[in-house]
């Protein structure tokens, strides 16, 4: 029999329902895989008991003949940005170390209601700020992939959902939740040869998700293939009155709607994404992607998104501005760390000193950098020149996409400008790191559904991903184009186990 950890969401759910194996067997297999993968540092805390409890409930339901949920028996990793009742939730920060929520986020609750079980809380870039998982207070996540030249330098699993991507690629979780503010699902998925979809803004509730940039933050699934993403997104999404920007729309039956027949569909190729200096292998994967979609019956059309080059700088005003406001809540009063330094005379700090010391001690460098940028661009005298201008450019970027939808149904582009890089390579150069998300950010600014699907391995034996961007609410169009690529790319590579 295939090892149970080789199975994804659909295979586990269907196998449990058919009685091929029990949910408990699956949970035990994954718990053991998690326990054996400490070298990846993908989890901040493991919760094997939670996985077993959920599995036993599913097995009992099945024995009693009760209906099983769409994720029944599937053990998943939960990005440590989702509040989980009774289980430490840190956003990979020191300031939230030891924070144990008394409530459950809507998305995680939806997944438990659908029958999934929790293997643990996954590592990430601190407050989801980063593209390589090097900003976590709990250490770097190491990608399970290695270059085929035998070089063993640890590679970045991408970020911010780097624990999620590493865990799914390493087969220590059947799937994982991610969140995407400016590429944090798609870029790590591309780096590790898995699928990940960020739905339309508002599809998944933000309630109980540690806030980074609220106008951009969206949760989504990261899984081995497109069908698994469709199933898991269906379980995560849905209207939530507790999130003021939640979409009050029914959740489409994405799994049932999967089809790789793209006849009559038009796929747009944005000419501005062909940037100078892009890796030729990335361009090659893009060419193959076009051919695969043509083979699936789609018509390929050239389109223009003229404001593309301004998306990344606009993002690095808007996201830090929102972050500086959202992270003001970490003040050492209501939860998390408190630093109360005494002065030389032994006099205890006042309230203002406590705020400043707590935040100095509790936030990492990248988080501080973004809070300072955000504070600066929102400050009197600079608000119009920076923040307002960026929001106007955001309008123009969204308008570019609206115009493109007159000519195409879905857009195909690379997910990232390069494959994964060694940890440490870009850690000292914030701008070089930001450029990782140059292809991912425009869809985030426009709130559009977007997905990364593995396309091929590059010359170093590392995965490259292709990105599909859809119209608002058209996750189905994105998933179906992703499925067409998946079926034709035949990407079956996985990292060789070294951990």
């Amino acid at each position, binding site marked *: 029999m295939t090892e149970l950890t080789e199975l994804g969401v659909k295979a586990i759910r269907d196998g449990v329902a058919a009685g091929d194996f029990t949910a408990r067997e699956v949970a035990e297999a994954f718990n053991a895989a998690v326990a054996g993968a400490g070298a990846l540092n993908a989890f901040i805390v493991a919760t094997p008991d939670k996985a077993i409890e959920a599995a036993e409930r599913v097995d009992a339901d099945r024995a009693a003949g009760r209906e099983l949920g769409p994720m029944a028996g599937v053990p998943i990793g939960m990005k440590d940005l989702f509040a989980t009742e009774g289980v430490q939730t840190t956003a990979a920060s020191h300031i939230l170390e030891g924070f144990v929520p*008394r409530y459950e986020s809507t998305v995680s609750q939806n997944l438990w209601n659908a029958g999934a079980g929790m293997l643990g809380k996954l590592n990430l870039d601190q407050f989801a700020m980063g593209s390589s998982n090097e900003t976590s207070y709990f250490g770097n996540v190491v990608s399970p992939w290695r270059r085929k030249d035998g070089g063993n330098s640890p590679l970045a699993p991408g970020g911010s959902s780097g624990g999620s991507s590493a865990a799914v690629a390493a087969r220590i979780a059947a799937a994982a939740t991610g969140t995407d503010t400016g590429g944090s699902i798609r870029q790590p998925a591309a780096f590790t040869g898995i699928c990940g979809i960020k739905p339309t803004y508002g599809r998944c509730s933000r309630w109980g998700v540690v806030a980074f940039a609220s106008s951009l933050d969206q949760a989504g699934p990261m899984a081995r293939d497109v069908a698994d993403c469709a199933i898991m997104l269906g379980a995560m999404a849905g209207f939530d009155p507790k999130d003021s920007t939640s979409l009050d729309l029914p959740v489409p039956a994405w799994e049932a709607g999967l089809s790789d027949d793209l006849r009559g569909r038009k796929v747009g190729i944005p000419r501005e994404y062909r940037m100078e200096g892009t890796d030729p292998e990335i361009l090659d994967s893009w060419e193959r992607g076009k051919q695969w979609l043509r083979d699936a019956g789609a018509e390929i059309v050239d389109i223009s998104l003229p404001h593309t080059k301004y998306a990344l700088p606009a993002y690095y005003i808007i996201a830090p501005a929102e972050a500086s406001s959202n992270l003001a809540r970490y003040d050492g009063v209501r939860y998390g760390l408190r630093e109360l330094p005494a002065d030389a005379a032994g006099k205890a700090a006042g309230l203002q000193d406590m705020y400043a010391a707590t935040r100095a001690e509790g936030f990492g460098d990248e988080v501080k950098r973004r809070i*300072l940028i955000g504070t600066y661009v929102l400050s009197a005298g600079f608000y119009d020149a920076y923040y307002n201008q960026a929001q106007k450019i955001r309008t123009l970027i969204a308008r570019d996409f609206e115009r493109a939808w007159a000519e195409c149904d879905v857009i195909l582009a690379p997910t990232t400008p390069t494959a994964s890089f060694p940890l440490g390579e870009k850690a000292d150069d914030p701008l070089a790191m930001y450029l990782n998300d140059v292809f991912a950010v425009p869809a985030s600014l426009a709130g559009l559904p977007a997905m990364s699907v593995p396309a091929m391995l590059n010359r170093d034996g590392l995965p490259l991903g292709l990105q599909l961007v859809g119209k608002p609410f058209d996750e189905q169009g994105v998933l179906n184009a992703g499925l067409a690529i998946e079926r034709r790319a035949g990407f079956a590579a996985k990292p060789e186990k070294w951990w």
Partner: protein
Amino acid sequence: MSVDQTTVAKIASLARIKMSEDELARMAPELSQILDWVEQLGEVDTSEVEPMTAVIPNSLRLRADEVDADPLTGGNRRDDVLANAPAAEHGFFGVPKVIE
């Protein structure tokens, strides 16, 4: 360089983050580099453009004007609210003395 060390010190104080001189010296060129890079947004003529307020058109809902309309986010959860406070006392958040 768009921000010097004095400016960074001012921003850090607004953001309530204590920073040493070393940190300020390190952060100033990094922030300047990022701010110089975002300056390019100034090239775009946006005189006729409204700033974005909602990425997906949506109307802001109000919850029902009822006490405890939602049991999870309604009232009577004092102990839960205080459970993670670093210094909860007598049913309140404890803070250092504010008035001398």
